[in-house]
């Protein structure tokens, strides 16, 4: 079983996000970078499938040089090799362009199974996984919390709004991860040592046969960013007793805020 994991390096979720002076991107100086949490589930699931069915796990990413740190972490968890597309033209490209790049990599090295995070927690686009599957002409199943591979088919339990659904697809297929799928392992010390020797192949867009211009011209473009408006100073509900506070809160929510 040849498994590919689509991985993105993102700011840790506890990061304080600030906007640059041009108002179109975020300040990256003081940010701690991590593997996108949903991609961590993807790495873990790929390793578990490899342990059960054999094969190898390849980590594929689009990003700047420092993305190799995230790939190296996945290799330390147990993945076999990494491929990074590092090209200035791909910097800040939109979800569709990212999917196009990843699909071009995957076309050159065919895989039985592709696992992607449901979204990256920076762009929150939810777009790359299904779009990669579309470009490759293979089925995708979104938001998976459990999977089972039998013969050349994968059966997935996916979450939908208000429930779960079980779907089956022939391999090759792509699925995206949902919280609850697994508990990602930590990289062990021997794992970290071994990862230093595992290969990470760094390529440009030209290397995978994509015109940089096509990627530079993303169909969607961020024209402005802002921090959501702060809530006006909150009001503490005071009262002599818990009872008095509860009465006052319900009165305010009903009469002033009109939300109940």
């Amino acid at each position: 079983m040849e498994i590919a994991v689509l991985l993105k390096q993102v700011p840790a979720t506890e990061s304080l996000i600030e906007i640059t002076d041009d108002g179109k991107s975020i300040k990256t100086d003081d940010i701690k970078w991590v593997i996108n949490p949903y991609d961590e589930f993807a790495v873990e699931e790929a390793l578990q499938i490899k342990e059960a069915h054999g094969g190898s796990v390849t980590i594929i990413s689009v990003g700047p040089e420092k993305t190799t740190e995230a790939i190296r972490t996945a290799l330390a968890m147990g993945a076999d090799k990494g491929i990074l597309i590092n090209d200035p033209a791909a910097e800040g490209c939109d979800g569709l362009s990212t999917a196009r790049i990843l699909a071009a990599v995957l076309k050159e090295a065919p895989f039985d199974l592709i696992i992607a995070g449901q979204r990256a927690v920076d762009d929150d686009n939810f777009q790359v996984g299904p779009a990669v599957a579309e470009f490759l002409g293979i089925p995708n199943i979104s938001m998976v919390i459990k999977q089972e591979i039998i013969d050349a088919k994968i059966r997935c339990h996916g979450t939908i709004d208000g429930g779960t659904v079980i779907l089956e697809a022939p391999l090759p297929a792509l699925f995206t991860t949902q919280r609850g799928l697994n508990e990602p392992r930590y990289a062990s010390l021997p794992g970290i040592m071994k990862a230093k020797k595992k290969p990470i192949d760094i390529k440009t867009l030209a290397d995978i046969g994509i015109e940089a211009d096509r990627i530079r011209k993303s169909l969607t473009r961020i024209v402005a960013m802002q921090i959501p408006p702060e809530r006006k100073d909150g009001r503490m509900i005071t009262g002599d007793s818990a009872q008095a506070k509860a009465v006052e809160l319900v009165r305010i929510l009903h009469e002033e805020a009109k939300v109940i």
Partner: protein
Amino acid sequence: MSQGVLAIAEQIEGVFRKVTYEALSEGRRIADRLNCDLTAIILGANLDNISKELGQYGADRIIVAQSPTLSEYLTDAYTTVIADYINKENPAVVILGASTQGKDLSARLSARLNAPLAMDCVAIRFEENNIIATRSMYGGKILADITLDGNPQILAIRPNAMTIANTAGAGSIEKLDTDTGNTVLQFIEKSLDTGKVELTEADTVISGGRGMAGADFTVIEELAQLLDGAVGASRSAVDEGWRPASDQVGQTGKVVSPNLYIACGISGAIQHLAGMSSSKVVVAINKDPEAPIFSKADFGIEGDLFEIVPLIAEQVKKLKG
């Protein structure tokens, strides 16, 4: 020439999702601005009784793609039917709800049609004749305005972010002959949490955190039931195994924008705040007067949630008679 606005309706078991009405209403506003028609498309197996309802939210035409093969949402079949229709009609704008299904469908459609997609929009406006979509990034820590270049412009809108407008009109219904093409995904079964309000669509969300001190969320569940709301949880409550992962509100869970969000025993880690900051009114109940959540709340009560929440429930009961 591209023309018209197409709204993709979503139904489950013969009931439209609330976000469908929001997508139609927003689609109507866009169509009025562009001075064109709003067409709704609905896919499924038993749609005869529900299709006409879409006319009450501004659809001039309602396209009904009805077939036993469309009874359940399958990415490949739905993408093919809708993409074929879009290729034939060439709408300028496609709008749909960014539900789990809508996210999957819109992502696949954007790749099939090589069309720009603004995912999970919280607002849509025009600058001259160009659409500017506002969407949240970094789990709600940032709001970004984006432009879309190409046709059609696909807008997946966040549930609960846009207002529903009823219209007097009744749209004309047209049947669409469907050809799902060669599909490979197979539906096995589904299970729905009956009687549970979907977190992302709820008008009221009451969440519990570490202060719940255990898996017993009864006090919160009772208040949620009184308010027809949904129960959410912080990441720590989910990590402790007190609530399922599907209840998690935050940057690595669901982003919610209810009218009323009540945070009980939640300190207010930045990753949680990201998931609920677009709520209209926020109430925080916490023992610790220094909890960061209070600085992000409209109203705060310092105290024991196990004492206060039942008292609130009692008052709500009185209010409702």
